[in-house]
């Protein structure tokens, strides 16, 4: 036989992995906990622990084997579970915290670095379980290491539950206060969603939706560095060519996710769900979404033109990625988390990127105001108002939006917070000094929007 690949193709693959930070960001196993319910809390904890360990016990080992076989790093192995507010709807707040500890114990046992699903879906109202879970979030996230939480407070079909929005402002603030000595790390493990996807493999927002199978493998790819490199190499390309270049690159990146997903599914004997074709940055230099936008010709991310550049990028990534995978899902788009992206951090530091511009950018990409540090004296009502704005963008545009905000207790705009690892660090962003208190305290729901008359 002859070599079936051109030399350039082989070299390109190796270069993408070793020089441009191409990696598989996460293999996430979704596990249903719907059959773990028990009136006896101790029995329920045992059932949950056993089920996670039984299903995902080999996840890390298999991930490492696949990584060695194909020579591509697989950064995270994670688990998402059925929203605990549904799986454990009969429990009270104290018992919910016990379940969080159980999830944490299971995560430690199997060697994963996050477990998602300490979650509630309250877009139209609260069940008793939802209320118990939401009240448990600050204690649960500040006393566990691996547990991630998310709350869906709105959808395009139902509108926005503003009572939940009000509550979540307080919950986020309390999370930060309880972990003030660690720059509010608990708040970094909590996402407030509008239109939350049920098959998202990325943390902190991953949970295993009730429409999902018993157990499933979802994969999240990465690769902003690869796209940034391609964009940089063609400064003369017009927008049509630029879009094509990004599509081709996104195709290749997503194919890696498809390969790893299929391989993991086969090795673990668990069905393959989706590839999430997001461009997920890391704090590493050269692994930045902001850098892609700057390579397109913007002096700094956040300046005029940034929203247009991001719109082009996000759309091209989806077009290229969609063809590369049999099933695409999750969040699928370019992420713009501030603390996790060195280019975004720089843009904030030099004053190019403000919270308002970031909000505008979330209209055209995945996911929302992600990993933003707010001044420590930000009121719960202001956080709620920020959530309401972001949820409104998601609701009206029929897309997922989210807020993952970390009030930096004791710090002011311009000072820095450090979370370490993949979560990175960021400057505290300035907010508007004017109050939204009366607005967010009105109560009730913002009605679902009309879908026709679409201007």
């Amino acid at each position: 036989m002859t070599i079936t690949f051109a030399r350039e193709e082989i070299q390109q693959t190796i270069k993408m992995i070793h020089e441009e930070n191409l990696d598989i960001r996460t293999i996430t196993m979704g596990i249903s906990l719907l059959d773990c319910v028990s009136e006896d809390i101790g029995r329920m904890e045992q059932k949950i622990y056993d089920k996670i360990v039984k299903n995902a016990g080999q996840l890390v080992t298999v991930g490492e084997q696949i990584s060695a076989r194909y020579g591509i790093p697989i950064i995270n192995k994670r688990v998402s579970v059925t929203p605990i507010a549904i799986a454990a709807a009969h429990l009270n707040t104290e018992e919910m915290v016990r379940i969080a500890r159980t999830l944490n114990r299971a995560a430690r046992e199997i060697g994963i670095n996050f477990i998602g699903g300490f979650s509630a879906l309250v877009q139209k109202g609260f069940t008793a379980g939802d209320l118990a879970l939401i009240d448990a979030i600050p204690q649960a996230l500040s006393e566990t290491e691996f547990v991630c939480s998310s709350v869906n407070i709105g959808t395009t079909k139902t509108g926005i539950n503003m009572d939940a929005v009000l509550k979540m402002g307080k919950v986020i603030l309390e999370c930060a206060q309880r972990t003030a000595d660690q720059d509010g790390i608990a708040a970094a493990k909590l996402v407030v969603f509008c239109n939350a996807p049920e098959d998202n493999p990325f943390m902190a927002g991953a949970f295993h939706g009730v429409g999902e199978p018993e157990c499933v493998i979802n994969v999240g790819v990465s690769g902003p560095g690869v796209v940034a490199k391609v964009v940089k190499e063609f400064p003369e390309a017009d927008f049509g060519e630029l879009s094509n270049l990004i599509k081709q690159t996104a195709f290749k990146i997503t194919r890696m996710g498809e390969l790893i997903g299929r391989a993991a599914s086969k090795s673990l004997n668990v069905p393959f769900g989706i590839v999430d074709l997001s461009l997920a940055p890391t704090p590493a230099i050269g692994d930045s979404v902001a850098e892609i936008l700057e390579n397109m010709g913007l002096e700094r991310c956040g300046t005029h033109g940034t929203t247009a550049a991001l719109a082009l990028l996000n759309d091209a990534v989806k077009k290229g990625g969609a063809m590369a995978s049999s099933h695409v899902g999750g969040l699928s788009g370019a992420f713009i988390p501030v603390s996790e992206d060195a280019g975004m951090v720089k843009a904030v530091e030099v004053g190019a990127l403000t919270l308002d511009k970031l909000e505008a950018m979330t209209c055209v990409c995945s996911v929302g105001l992600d990993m933003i540090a707010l001044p420590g004296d930000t009121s719960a009502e202001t956080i709620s108002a920020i959530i309401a704005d972001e949820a409104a963008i998601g609701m009206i545009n029929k897309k997922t939006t989210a807020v993952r905000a970390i009030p930096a207790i004791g710090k002011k705009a311009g000072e820095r917070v450090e979370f370490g690892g993949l979560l990175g660090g960021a400057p505290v962003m300035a907010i508007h000094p004017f109050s939204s208190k009366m607005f967010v305290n009105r109560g009730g729901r913002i009605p679902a929007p009309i879908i026709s008359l679409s201007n």
Partner: protein
Amino acid sequence: MALSLGESNRAIVTILGRDQTGIIAWVSGRLAEHSVNILDISQTIVDEFFTMIMVVDLNPSKIGLADLARMLEEEGNDKNLQVKVQHEDIFTFMHRI
């Protein structure tokens, strides 16, 4: 082209580094010791920079792909060579529809 995902046991060995005597002798010797069959070799030198791409079949061999990769990578490091061994599917998936 079939997307084999495990049925095939072919891997791509790539070696990059400054040219020196005996690179091919070393790698082919190590492969032969472990009964890894070489199916094809392509090699060039540009500006004293050596690049080699080799297609190998691990079926006759008892050594696993990961172990082979680790061994060649470590020995290659000692010779200032960057050696990678990767299952062929990663290239198939990335470059073929």
